[in-house]
């Protein structure tokens, strides 16, 4: 579709958002990213039944960990969209980029 989305977004491919582990997200922040969004399938349409619902809970948990660490839990979000919604993916990428831009750079200075 050759849709444009912000070039600062780096995609980490996983077979299902159920594969998302708390440590994956934390490591991303440790490596200096400013935000993470998890793009899962629409709720109720997980091929593995509950993968995206589990991811949602984990994202929620990580928000708490980030808040506790003074990083701001708003830097991580979960979105639900189907593989056919390329337009929505681009829109979400822009929305999240904008949100993180408003939050400013991550206070973590590791690897910078």
């Amino acid at each position, binding site marked *: 579709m050759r849709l444009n989305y912000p070039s600062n977004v780096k995609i980490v491919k996983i077979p299902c958002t159920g594969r998302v582990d708390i*440590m994956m997200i*934390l490591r991303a922040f*440790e490596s200096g990213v400013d935000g993470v969004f998890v793009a899962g399938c629409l709720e109720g349409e997980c091929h593995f039944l509950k993968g995206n619902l589990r991811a949602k809970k984990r994202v929620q948990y990580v928000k708490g*960990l*980030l808040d*506790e*660490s*003074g990083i701001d839990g708003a830097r991580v979000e979960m979105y639900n969209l189907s593989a056919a919604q390329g337009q929505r993916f681009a829109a979400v990428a822009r929305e999240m980029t904008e949100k993180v831009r408003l939050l400013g750079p991550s*206070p973590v200075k590791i690897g910078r």
Partner: protein
Amino acid sequence: MIVANRKPLEEILEMIRPYKKILLLGCNECVTVCAAGGQREVGVLASELRLSRAKDGNEIEIREHTLERQCDHEYIDQIRPFVGDYEIVLSMACGAGVQYVAETCRSKLVVPAVDTTFLGVTMEQGVWSERCQGCGNCILDKTGGICPIARCAKSLLNGPCGGSSGGKCEIDKEVDCGWQLIIDRLQELGQMDRYEEIIPVKDWTTARDGGPRKRMREDLRL
């Protein structure tokens, strides 16, 4: 198992504030099962600590290490070769583990990263609940297999009190009345006659009240 709860990050950060090199020590036993201080929780806490300290420009070096058990010398001995490289040990084991590591590594300050709470069971994934208080003198045979000491908020041996309402305890509508559970069970077992027996005053000498406890089996000693 012994159930514990991770301490709030703020409290842990305060304990390790002056230190830059820490050994974060997990335990593969109970605290792993109750997801408070196993290898995974070690990873998460280490990450949180690094993020938090990096944010303040006060970076920290953390060695993550998880022992098979922190309540046995033979496993604690495994950290001897490298514990000296760190300024402080942050233990994620139960209170027993924290103390035993401290006893073993006398030159090191050993601090706790979890609050040890109770002896309990896994009710479902992610939910644990108390069952035993280790009083040293089990009476489960008299109470339908449900412990009034651990499960009644007042540890009444002849309950329930007047605050039992709809099967719940007066202290919290989410908490089951231990005595309601006992009575239900005695009824199921056809042992309601047991309810009419007065359980006599308890001898607490076998509990914590009798002082620190120790158990020995001569035949096993080397």
